[in-house]
């Protein structure tokens, strides 16, 4: 499927009116036919369509995604460089959304129609309805511009050196090197973009948890558990929640994959040097080798996440294990 996706991007890239020649060379150079022909030959754009796709596929088998037109570096190198920033951001957001959304959803289901239910509903509604880019502006304006509590855009203080580390995940690398000052700086820079990115996911997770919990709390086995005289806490956490988690995990898996792509807006505003910003820049520059590479990587991630979700059913639901 991921391969098909690359084929589609490939075909689209050749049938749309936009021409990378113009985007890359600028008006003046692009008006010179000799320069344009040379440039096309250099990037293989003069070859027939199928030959080019063949070259792309052959490269793929060797782990080569081709060269980015805009950065003039191998696409794979770009992706490997930018991915950790996005994965770090998306993971922190995801953890935040789960840590807040699941308890909120449970509480909203238990005390249905109470103030906490209303709060959960308003929060999830605003989370789903607010434009990410606007939320980012508001957060920056309040916590950076006005209150000065949070640092500005970027992954680190502008004067700080990026940590030398094995992974590219700054939290891990700074902790690994014992650089706690860098760790704190990284964490501080992460908080605002992570909250912004988490908003929509938080809304979805709260809604789903609440609906699933309401469903489970009405089931016979919950009534039996209560009739057996189990404590309410045990009934809710062990009997109801465990079953309610199945739809939450399904949605959560997809939501995590979406966070990786949803980072486009957040990263653009927070000057976050991750895949999202790379995607936007590649798209704006009509850098199709890069877009194809990103599509492949993201589609592969979707598949992987779906596999993990399927596997997690076995943990949550013993019936699947058979």
């Amino acid at each position, binding site marked *: 499927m991921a391969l098909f996706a690359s084929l*589609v991007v490939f075909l689209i890239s050749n049938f749309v009116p936009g021409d990378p020649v113009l985007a890359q060379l600028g008006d003046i150079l692009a008006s010179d036919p000799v320069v344009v022909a040379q440039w096309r030959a250099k990037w293989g754009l003069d070859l027939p369509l199928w030959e080019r796709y063949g070259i792309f596929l052959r490269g793929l088998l060797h782990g080569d995604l081709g060269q980015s037109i805009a950065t003039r570096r191998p696409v794979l190198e770009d992706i490997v460089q930018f991915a950790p920033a996005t994965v770090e951001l998306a993971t922190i957001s995801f953890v935040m959304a789960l840590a807040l959304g699941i308890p909120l959803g449970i509480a909203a289901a238990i005390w249905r129609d109470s103030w906490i239910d209303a709060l959960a509903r308003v929060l999830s509604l605003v989370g789903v309805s607010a*434009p990410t880019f606007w939320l980012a502006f508001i957060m920056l304006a309040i916590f950076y511009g006005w209150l000065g509590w949070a640092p500005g855009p970027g992954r680190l203080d502008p004067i700080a050196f990026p940590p030398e580390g094995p992974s590219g995940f700054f939290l891990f690398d700074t902790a690994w090197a014992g650089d706690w000052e860098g760790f704190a700086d990284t964490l501080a820079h992460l908080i605002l973009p992570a909250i912004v990115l988490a908003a929509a996911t938080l809304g979805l997770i709260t809604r789903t948890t609440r609906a699933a919990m309401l469903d489970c709390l009405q089931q016979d086995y919950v009534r039996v558990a209560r009739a057996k005289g189990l404590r309410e806490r045990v009934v809710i956490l062990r009997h109801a929640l465990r079953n309610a988690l199945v739809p939450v995990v399904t949605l959560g898996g997809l939501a995590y994959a979406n966070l990786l792509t949803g980072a486009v*807006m957040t990263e653009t505003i927070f000057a976050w040097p991750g895949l999202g910003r790379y*995607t936007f820049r590649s798209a704006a520059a009509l850098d199709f080798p890069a877009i194809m590479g990103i599509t492949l990587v993201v589609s592969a991630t979707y598949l992987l996440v779906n596999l993990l979700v399927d596997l997690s059913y076995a943990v949550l639901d013993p019936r699947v294990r058979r």
Partner: protein
Amino acid sequence: MRRRLRRYGLAWAGAAIVLAWLLVALLAPWISPYPPNAVDVTQRLLLPSAAHWLGTDILGRDVLSRLLHGARISLLAGFSVVLLGAGIGTAIGILAAWLRGWGEEALMRLTDLVLCFPPIILALALAAALGIGTTNTIIAMLVVWWPKYARLARSLALVQRSQEYVEAATVLGLPQKRILLRHILPNIFGPIAVLCTLDLGIAILTFAGLSFLGLGVVPPAAEWGSMVSEGRELVEQWWVATFPGLAILTVVIGFNFLGDGLRDWLDPKAQR
């Protein structure tokens, strides 16, 4: 009963919000205090006041007037994407359910193919490739928008096809085409309309997002996403970016309320 009232109360509130914005979009040229693109650099970045209720932007344009005109582009883009997307998708889904065999297989594989894309990336790439402009952005969004409707329409049509009334119509000897258009289509209309309503909010958000990134409308058009973008650096002059964002938020909330209400109304079992 009280809960019921409150549930539909939210739906009515949503309908009121949507209606209000539709009116604003319709009447924008008459109710705006200033022309949306009237530049006056002597009046730039003014705080909200009696003369400029929502202040002025960096070129001295009245934020309120631009915001009211922005409703036109946002709603128009949202409705075009969703209605056309739903139309194309539903047609393909019903066609697939009607063709069966390899035709159905081919159409549904095509649908899966588009669905397996990360939609934002595809829309971004297409919008960039087609060039800036409202129509181009709508086209780019349409490409990623129709598949969910194709899937929904096909599964709904398949369910309807096994119903007795369709069998009766078949036995009566009505042509397949007539059964599909006159018998099945009206019966699958409800769920599709619900999806459309909930989708309108998402479409408006996506369009505003693409505009924010500079891939939507051509400046100086007054559009909410690009208005936020113009004010993004102006943290001190918070009103420039805050109000257009609030406009998007309220429209999307309105459609979400309305869509939730419609869903409950059409499917009382799902009500909670």
